[in-house]
């Protein structure tokens, strides 16, 4: 049975699907413009100590900085993709079609895998788009075509970030299986609960506070704020092996737990 083909068949454009993908695409296309206006604002209002170069002259869209700059800013729109994942999984529970699929002869492993493949598919598409966008912006803005792929590892890191946040959505969907609750919980976790835990840990333990082990913090740490690079020349913005390790551990945790939950649950 071709699981990914089956998923595509189920994915028929419904209204929510159209709305979410359109939103995501719009955000995707308009981000570079925002980026540029953002730099302009910084420059105009002298909001930051902007270092030796004025922000609009920073080589943000030139090779090979373009990779780290776009991957950082594009992680803000990953949440749309995770909503897509949440809705495609939870509606199978809401319509009871997961039951029918199993009765018809799918195994639970196959059902779980079919959703996992969809996750990988979304992550791959978004990564490919980022890759092409990077090439486009790079060729457009760079004075020469040296170092095109020097920091290309930010692109696979971006994919890892996507898989991470999508796995979180995936895990919550199999755990709770109601789209409304899962979406609220996800937003609540990312913007309220984890920041509170973060603050409490920081307050209690100071420098050695282990906040980097928090799930969303580990996700965020994969791609660091890139602009400091231009303020403090020589500042490193790469990801450490430990940070990769923590992020991958969370991904494995989300995936295995969701698999286990789904294997056990009554349908």
């Amino acid at each position, binding site marked *: 049975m071709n699981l990914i083909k089956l998923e595509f*068949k*189920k994915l*028929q454009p419904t209204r929510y699907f159209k709305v979410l993908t359109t939103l995501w695409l719009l955000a995707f296309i308009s981000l570079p413009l925002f980026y540029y206006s953002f730099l302009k604002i910084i420059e105009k209002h002298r909001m930051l100590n902007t270092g030796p170069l004025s922000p609009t002259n920073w080589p943000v869209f030139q090779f090979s900085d373009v990779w780290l700059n776009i991957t950082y800013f594009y992680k803000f729109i990953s949440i749309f993709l995770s909503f897509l994942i949440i809705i495609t999984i939870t509606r199978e529970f809401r319509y009871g*079609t997961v*039951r*029918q699929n*199993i*009765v018809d*002869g799918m195994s639970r492993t196959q059902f779980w895998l079919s959703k996992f493949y969809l996750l990988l598919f979304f992550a791959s598409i978004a990564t490919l788009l980022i890759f092409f966008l990077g090439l486009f912006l790079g060729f457009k803005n760079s004075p020469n075509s040296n170092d095109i792929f020097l920091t290309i590892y930010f692109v696979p890191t971006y994919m890892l970030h996507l898989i991470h946040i999508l796995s979180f959505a995936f895990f919550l969907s199999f755990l709770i299986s109601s789209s409304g609750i899962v979406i609220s919980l996800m937003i609540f976790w990312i913007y309220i609960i984890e920041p509170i835990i973060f603050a409490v840990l920081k307050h209690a333990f100071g420098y050695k506070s282990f906040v980097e082990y928090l799930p969303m913090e580990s996700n965020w740490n994969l791609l660091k704020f890139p602009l400091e690079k231009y303020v403090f020349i020589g500042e490193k913005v790469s990801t450490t092996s430990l940070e990769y390790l923590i992020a991958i551990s969370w991904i494995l945790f989300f995936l295995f737990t969701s698999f286990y939950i789904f294997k056990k649950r009554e349908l």
Partner: protein
Amino acid sequence: MGNEILITNKLTKRFKNILAVDSLDLVVEKGDVFGILGPNGSGKSTTLGMILGVLSPTSGDFSWFNQGNSNKLRKKIGATIERPLFYPYMSGEKNLEITSMIKECDKKNIDKVLEIVELYERKHDPFSTYSLGMKQRLSIASALLSDPDVLILDEPTNGLDPQGIADIRVLIKNIAISGKTIILASHLLDEVQKVCNSFCVLKKGKLIHKGYVSDNFSNTTTIEIDSNSRDKLKKLLSQFNMIENIEDGEEFFLIKASKNISIFDLNSFLVENGVIVTHLNQKKQSLEEQFLAILAEKN
């Protein structure tokens, strides 16, 4: 050995504090049209849920075709579950395409089964716009799609109009004649009587009876009788020794007699004594009476 389609072995399901299915031992053989009867909440759907892989048994197990219970075996079974469950935003046809992908069967059957359940004209409409009966028909179509050797139907005529009910019953009978095995859960007794050859009765999750629909296992039989001289008839009937009870009906007497009563002897006795019978009818015991008797017996 070798003819069993389904064997359950002490199959048990407990939901928190409800024992929904209690050590159920069933054997369904090839060619059976097997009815599962029982009042509401007796565990019929729960049993089907377990043998179809959506509920995990608390204890006990079951085996399909003497080969265990893998999902591959389920592909050889066509099943409808309690409610028709399909993707509401997709057409009936698209929904069946999904079924055929999962069952790995030919898409060519789709039009055929849609015609059988008379949904062909509406095949391009979204499932969400179907009436309850049409949804039920679609789920029967999906069960038939892979031309399976075993058909499991959980209250298949639920929500259908009288014509639909009659059609589905004819369909089930025809499928049975072609040698396929059918398991039918229902609380509609005449449905089971009309289509099944063997049946079992569940009550609060327990198997309380197993037998053939044709069996008549009650000790008494009911006879309708009437004559132009009712008083004389009643007097004579009370003298006939196998008769246990006489009830005055409006049109005839309803008598309860021992199962061994001979209608010939009764009639001869009456004629010899000068009573001419104008109405005489030994009622075949319906499954409904059997069913109620079984339930009462086990109380």
